[in-house]
């Protein structure tokens, strides 16, 4: 199962669409240059292809739990993790003062795509570790940072997020885990957490759990939740590992996909209380979690696109070698490779066009994340933060919903051979399913999008982005791309109609807005993806004249953009009709009728 990192397309999206040179020029990014990023992409591609991708299939056999509460990771994962750590990839965007490289989110996002394509289950370990690093870096005391960050930034120790409990899934107000102050200033944590990704494993010497729990005097609801560091092994004053903490993995879930990633049920305090250390101030835990939510949700959007890319590559490979039936319309009776059949073409193009649009939109968002963090002008910082806030639920929700469709299409290209596990494409289909669920389901993303990200700022960012898309459509018209231009501007009109509807209904009857929230999220994904493909088309047109232009690549980009305009953008009007006119029928049946 070969994986070829799409370095050429990543580089195009970075430079032509996400403006990498401008991100390198931001204060604090002085070490980052386009040439350096090129070198990083090449080596990351080699590593993803040569080390991570070959372990993906074995990972599907799953991790093994033992009654001594240990978990053995799948074959090859431990060695891959060691190589990952030794090669320094864990530190790509970890803070420089704690041993990381502190590179821009734009660069790390590009590399993360390759890890996720190569081995999605494996890639979750570094992703969660980075999330924990970010939370500790932003909110923990200097003393805690000094103990944990140096070894987490290098990947010597991994990190986890312990949020969910059986009764507290999307609604974290229901968290019941308890934290009681101890005499030494630490806390004793008791409770059970579920769905803890890489909660227990044998990859690293220590696992640093970030745990949400309530203090004895905490107010009810979301304002009474605090964040604690609970290490698997306590850390001695000299930095060496001490006693085993009172936290254990009591079982692993049996899942639909990502079998290589152990999903743990964690029990805290069975022997009286796990030692925990408060991060930041009491009762602010959920706020702290939200500060890294953007990165984590962007990460899951990348996961969705990345597994789509892997499935697409597999589908292309199969379509080239599978010979079946004569060519449509040909008098020749001999069978041809199915890639010659028009419907297979349509499927491959549908996959390719969406993946390229998603990659572009995700990297554009990552660049906004960098500008929001480092731009010298406060107004640009704020504008980019608003962009990030608006785009994150779209990238997360749209990329992952489409990952389900795209990986399903990859199975379809394989026909019956796709449904049996032998070809390997079924794994991508199963692995993709979780991405639309964890880190906030699509429904949660869509509510966030219509409420906090659209209604509460009166649609300012939504309309600004649509205005940019319209300007792109105008430029496409001027460049002679009439069809793509018309499809894009038509979609923008529909999207504006939906924004107006969401704003109006959210104020008057939010149930109507909520009923159309997921279609609205998808619609914005398709339109903004179309905007990026329009920009890509324009960039391809202008590069075509240059010396040393990669004619094949640019031509393919242009055709893919046109396909996106003719096949994806027209879906917008159907979604718009459902959003604006379909809410009442969605809600009309009495509950008893179901």
């Amino acid at each position, binding site marked *: 199962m070969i994986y*070829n990192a799409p*370095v050429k397309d990543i580089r195009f999206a970075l430079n032509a669409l996400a403006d990498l040179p401008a991100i390198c020029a931001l204060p604090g990014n002085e*070490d980052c*240059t386009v*040439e*350096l990023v*090129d*070198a*990083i992409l*090449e*080596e990351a591609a*080699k*590593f993803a292809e*040569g*080390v991570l991708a070959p372990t993906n299939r074995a990972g599907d056999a799953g991790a093994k739990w033992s009654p001594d509460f240990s978990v053995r990771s799948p074959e090859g994962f431990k060695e891959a993790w060691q*190589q990952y750590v*030794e*090669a*320094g*990839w864990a*530190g*790509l965007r970890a803070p420089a003062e704690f041993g990381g*490289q502190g590179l821009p989110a734009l660069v790390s996002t590009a590399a993360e795509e390759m890890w996720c394509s190569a081995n999605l289950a494996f890639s979750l370990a570094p992703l969660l570790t980075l999330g924990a690093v970010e939370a500790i870096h932003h909110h923990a005391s200097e003393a805690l940072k000094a103990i944990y960050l140096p070894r987490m930034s290098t990947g010597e120790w991994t990190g986890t997020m312990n949020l969910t409990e059986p009764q507290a899934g999307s609604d974290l107000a229901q968290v019941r885990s308890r934290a009681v102050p101890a005499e030494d200033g630490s806390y004793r944590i008791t409770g059970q957490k579920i769905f803890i990704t890489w909660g227990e494993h044998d990859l690293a010497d220590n696992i640093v759990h970030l745990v949400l729990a309530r203090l004895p005097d905490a107010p009810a609801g979301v304002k009474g939740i605090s964040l604690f560091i609970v290490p698997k092994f306590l850390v001695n004053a000299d930095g060496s590992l001490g006693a085993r903490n009172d936290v254990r993995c009591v079982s692993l879930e049996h899942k639909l996909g990502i079998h290589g990633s152990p999903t743990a049920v964690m029990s805290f305090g069975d022997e009286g209380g796990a030692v925990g250390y408060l991060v930041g101030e009491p009762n602010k835990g959920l706020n702290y979690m939200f500060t890294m939510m953007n990165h984590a949700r962007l990460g899951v959007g990348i996961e969705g696109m990345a597994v789509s890319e892997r499935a697409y590559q597999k589908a292309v490979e199969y379509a080239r070698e599978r010979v079946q039936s004569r060519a449509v319309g040909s008098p020749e009776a001999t069978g041809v490779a199915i890639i010659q059949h028009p419907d297979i073409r349509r499927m491959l193009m549908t996959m390719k066009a969406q993946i390229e649009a998603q990659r572009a939109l995700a990297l554009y968002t990552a660049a906004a994340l960098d500008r929001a963090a480092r731009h010298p002008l406060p107004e640009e910082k704020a504008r980019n933060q608003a962009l990030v806030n608006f785009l994150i639920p779209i990238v997360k929700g749209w990329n992952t919903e489409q990952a389900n469709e795209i990986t399903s299409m990859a199975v379809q290209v394989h026909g019956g051979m796709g449904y049996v596990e032998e070809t390997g494409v079924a794994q991508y289909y199963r692995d993709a399913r979780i991405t639309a669920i964890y880190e906030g389901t699509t429904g949660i993303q869509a509510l966030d999008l219509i409420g906090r990200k659209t209604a509460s700022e009166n649609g300012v960012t939504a309309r600004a982005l649509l205005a940019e898309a319209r300007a792109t459509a105008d430029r496409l018209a001027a460049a002679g791309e009439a069809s793509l231009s018309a499809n894009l501007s038509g979609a923008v009109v529909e999207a504006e109609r939906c924004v107006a509807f969401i704003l109006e209904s959210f104020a008057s009857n939010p149930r109507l807005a909520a009923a159309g929230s997921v279609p609205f999220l998808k619609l914005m994904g398709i339109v903004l993806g179309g905007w990026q493909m329009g920009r890509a088309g324009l960039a391809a047109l202008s590069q075509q004249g240059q010396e*040393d*232009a*990669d*004619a*094949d*690549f640019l031509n393919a980009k242009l055709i893919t953009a046109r396909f996106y305009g003719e096949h994806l953008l027209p879906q917008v009007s159907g979604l718009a009709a459902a959003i604006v006119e379909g809410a009442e029928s969605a809600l009309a049946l009495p509950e008893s009728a179901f």
Partner: protein
Amino acid sequence: MKVLVAVKRVVDYNVKVRVKADGSDVDIANVKMSMNPFDEIAVEEAVRLKEAGKATEIVAVSMGVKQCEETLRTALAMGADRAILVETDAELQPLAVAKLLKEVVAKEQPQLVIVGKQAIDDDSNQTGQMLSALLGWAQGTFASKVDLADASVDVTREVDGGLETVKLKLPAVVTTDLRLNEPRYVKLPNIMAAKKKPLDKTTPADLGVDVTPRLKTLKVAEPAKRSAGVKVASAAELVAKLKNEAKVL
């Protein structure tokens, strides 16, 4: 001990090369280029010698267009200490490369030169041998093991009959074979550090070498396509065909 390694920028081994329409050459426009795999092995060997405390400095040299800088940065990221680019847009043939290397060696005075046994683009397998002749140094080609001592080096060579070990007096030229080592994956901090390592540039004119090609390419063509096979009805028919058509029996 100073070690000099030469690295060549070639079409990446994963790329399916195409011949230019006019049959003059292989088409390398917008094709992925990488370090010649045999040269990667040469750099890896030098880095291992340094890690073992036997080499003190590694100088990587490349020759050709400006983009060879990228290949040199890879060598620096793998562990070379500094790099020299002999920049030229001219076509460089093995003899020219050997002459240029000779001049670089004269300046740098390394005790050991390690080069790939051949480059995967033209498969010449000449540069190392020519360089040793020009320098009047000993040569150990197709090395699968290199054991470096203070004044000599034992090189195990992969020859047709098996393995042959030669002891060379230093200074010497060693050319690498595939089994010498497995090059490492480059580490991220080293990619960052490579950017700051010195990379000097010179030209064939500065080195006083005439690089005019001595060989002329007449034609470049793709290998003939394999024709379709036939099914034989019996072993007897197969034997007959092997005897009469293929004439191998």
